C-alpha cells in the first residue's frame, strides 16, 4: 500500500531553496528596473516599448515573471497550509492557485513577445 501524503507541510528543502533563489532574481531585477524607469518611464508608447524590445530587458523581465510565479506558488501554498485545514478545500485552493499562475505565465510570455 502506498501511503503518500498529498497535502501537508512535507515539501521541504527544495521549495525553500527555490523560494530564496527566486527572491534573489526578483531583488536584482527590481534594482535594474528602478534604474531603468529612473531614465525612461512609461511616458510614450514608443520609448516604453523600446525598453522591453532589447534582448536583455526582455529576457530579464521574462526571468523576473517566471520567478514571481514560482515564488508566489510556494508562498501562497504555504499560506493555504497554515490557515486552511480541511484537506479537500486546501487541495482545491492549491490547484486553483497553480492553475492561475500557469495561466499568468502564458499571458506574460504573450505580452513580452508580441511587442
Amino acid at each position, binding site marked *: 500500500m502506498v501511503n503518500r501524503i498529498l497535502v501537508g507541510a512535507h515539501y521541504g528543502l527544495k521549495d525553500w531553496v527555490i523560494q530564496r533563489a527566486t527572491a534573489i532574481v526578483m531583488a536584482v531585477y527590481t534594482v535594474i528596473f528602478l534604474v531603468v524607469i529612473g531614465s525612461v518611464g512609461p511616458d510614450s508608447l514608443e520609448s516604453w516599448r523600446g525598453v522591453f524590445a532589447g534582448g536583455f530587458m526582455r529576457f530579464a523581465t521574462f526571468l523576473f515573471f517566471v520567478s514571481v510565479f514560482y515564488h508566489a506558488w510556494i508562498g501562497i501554498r504555504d499560506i493555504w497550509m497554515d490557515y486552511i485545514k480541511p484537506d479537500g478545500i486546501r487541495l482545491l485552493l492549491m490547484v486553483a492557485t497553480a492553475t*492561475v499562475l500557469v495561466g499568468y505565465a502564458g*499571458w506574460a510570455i504573450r505580452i513580452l513577445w508580441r511587442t
Partner: protein
Amino acid sequence: MAEMAIKKKRPKNLDLPTIRLPLPGILSIIHRISGAALFLLLPFLLWLFESSLTSAETFASFKAVVDHGLVKIILLGLIWFYMHHFCAGIRYLLLDVDIGVDLKEAILSSKIVFGVSIALTLIVGVQVLW
C-alpha cells in the same frame, strides 16, 4: 518528552488589546499580507503592463486608468507593499545566512526595513505616479 512539554498547561493571554506585537513581528505579518496582496493583484498588474505595451489605444487606456486618483492611491499602496516585501525579503535572506540574528540587530534591521521601504515608496511613487 516533547509531547509532555506541549500538554503542560501554559498561561494564556487572549486579551488582545494588551498584546503588543514586537516590531519584527509586525514586519513579518505585513510581509505575509503584502505577498498575498501582490498575488491577488497580479491580473491587474499584468493587465496594466500589457496595455502599456500593446498599441496606441491600449496605451491611452493605461494612461487613463493610471491617471485616476483612486487608482493612484491603490498603486501607491501596492508600491509600498512591494517595497516592504522586497526589503523585508532581503532581511529574511540575510537572517537565513545568520546575519542580524540577535534581538538587538533584529529590531534595528526591522526599523531599517520600514524606513527604507517607505522612503523608496515615496521616491518611486512620486516619480511614476505624479
